[in-house]
């Protein structure tokens, strides 16, 4: 599905991601963990085309997407959320979501001018898609509310829905459960499972919440100082001495 080969990203003299190779299989939940500043978000930015890697290759279903801009990557089926959610406060949830399907539509200025059939069709499609995504994340009931009026957790879900509206094959979720309480975290975990099970998506997520990761992920990659220090099933990672040393912490506070 997604294959990353020897990718390095330098910011000035700093190697934010250095020589990382990994492969994520379709229909799985893949997690990336690591200390703050390990390069997790940067790794996502590289995949989604927001940043261009300094060296290395990224293949999506065999297609080289290494140097594509992020809008092209999105069109190839990579959806994502950001660490900080940024939505249009003064508009309704639904209005925020409609644009999510824009990349699958073609109408331009001329269609607007003559109010073409195509435009009408595509606007309806976008609206339907938005509603569908909203239902999927369980927020159909807030469709008409303003973003400014919904809760933190609902915002996060809207961000999910926005990524889903792009019809992705793979979604990259950057700390989806940060700042939500434990109860809601469980909900998010369920949602991610549902994405894989019902939609057949591939999920990649970054999280610090270990209990969630350990129970959810099929595969975990651990980054530290930009380097991949381990990769494997939760079980393998949990018992990997290097990971314990660098991230999980030794003996007594292993589970913290």
């Amino acid at each position: 599905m997604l294959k990353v080969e020897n990718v390095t990203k330098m910011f000035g003299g700093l190697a934010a991601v250095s020589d990382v190779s990994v492969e994520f299989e379709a229909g799985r939940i893949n997690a990336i963990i690591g200390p703050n500043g390990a390069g997790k978000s940067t790794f996502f930015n590289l995949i989604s085309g927001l940043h261009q890697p300094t060296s290395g290759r990224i293949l999506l279903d065999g297609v080289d997407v290494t140097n594509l801009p992020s809008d092209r990557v999105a069109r190839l089926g990579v959806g994502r959320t950001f660490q900080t959610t940024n939505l249009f406060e003064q508009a309704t949830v639904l209005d925020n979501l409609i644009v999510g399907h824009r990349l699958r539509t073609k109408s331009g200025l001329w269609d607007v001018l003559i109010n073409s059939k195509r435009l009408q069709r595509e606007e309806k499609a976008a609206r339907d898609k938005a509603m569908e995504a909203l239902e999927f994340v369980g927020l159909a009931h807030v469709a008409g509310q303003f973003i400014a009026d919904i809760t933190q957790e609902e915002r996060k879900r809207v961000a999910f829905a926005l990524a889903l509206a792009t019809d992705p094959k793979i979604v990259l979720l950057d700390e989806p459960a940060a700042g939500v309480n434990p109860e809601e975290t469980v909900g998010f975990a369920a949602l991610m499972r549902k994405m894989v099970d019902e939609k057949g998506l591939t999920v990649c997520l970054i999280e610090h919440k270990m209990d969630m990761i350990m129970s959810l992920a099929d595969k975990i990659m651990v980054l530290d100082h930009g380097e991949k220090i381990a990769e494997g099933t939760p079980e393998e990672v949990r018992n990997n001495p290097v990971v314990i040393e660098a991230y999980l912490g030794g003996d007594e506070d292993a589970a913290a």
Partner: protein
Amino acid sequence: MFKVASLLMTPAAKYLMLAFAILFPLVAANEYQVYVMATAFVWAIAVYGLNIITGFCGQLNLAHGGFFAIGAYTLGLLTADYGWSFWPAFLGALVMTAVLGFLVGIVSLRLKEHYFAIFTLCVGFIIYLLIDKWEELTHGAIGVRDIAAPYGFGLVDFTDTTPFYYLVLAFLVFAIWFMGRLSKSLLGRTFIAIRNGDELAQSLGINLMRNKVLAFVLSTTYAGLAGALYAGMVRFIGPEEANINHTFDMITYLLVGGIGTIMGPLLGTVGIVWITQSLQFLEEYRMIIFGPLLVLLVIFFPRGITGSFLTWMHRKSQALAPTKKRQENKVNTAQNREAESNA
């Protein structure tokens, strides 16, 4: 107060306003008032252009007045120096502003926020300097005279104020109609998405450059349209048409009316143009009042007439549904947070 305002915003009110605009020359006290209204409408068209790039797309374009001047000059020079008749020259002005808008757009839109604003400020100034200095083409400071007036194909005489008023009105209605359509369409939503956050927009598969350039070209074309109408109305233009103050004026109209709204540009422009006319007697004291007013406005009514009204409407609807779970948004709370630390 709000009763009146709320009437102003309903769709029916839009037709009422249109009816008023159509009847205006009949009820106006004299031709001068019609003339001023026509001037206001011309500016309003340009302000709608600014609304596209700045209100929807979120890029503060300070070269807007420059493009207005390019529209005016293209029409002026084509008719006065090259013997074109009005309507072909008018089309020429639109094409010219669109093409130049495209060229400026692809360079300037690579910059963001303040950099874009200041860059376009400089572009606007370069336009002014070129008009002022490139005498072989523009006559420099001497200006362009004997600009053709629009001809009415033997049906109407647009050199008269009232027919010209209707001509401008027709263009204005088209401009607003198109803006309304645009804002609700997928394309308009795309622009707004870019304003909200270009990284997010891009990750949704939106080609930033293409969309921003499109918005920019649209906005400069609006400016060119207004400029061409202006030249056909005043029929004498000079480099001062490109003065940066015109851009500042237009931003003020936009802000007062309500940035990013559909009716805001019109209300703001017409309102201020009339206020300016009636404050004539203040002469140099005008700015002593106007400057602080502008400051107070952005502090206390940051969303302009229309925006403040919409917020108020929204509050009211919230108040009607008290059971709704409410949580203040991050922006507000972040404000609160720093407000305290600075208190």
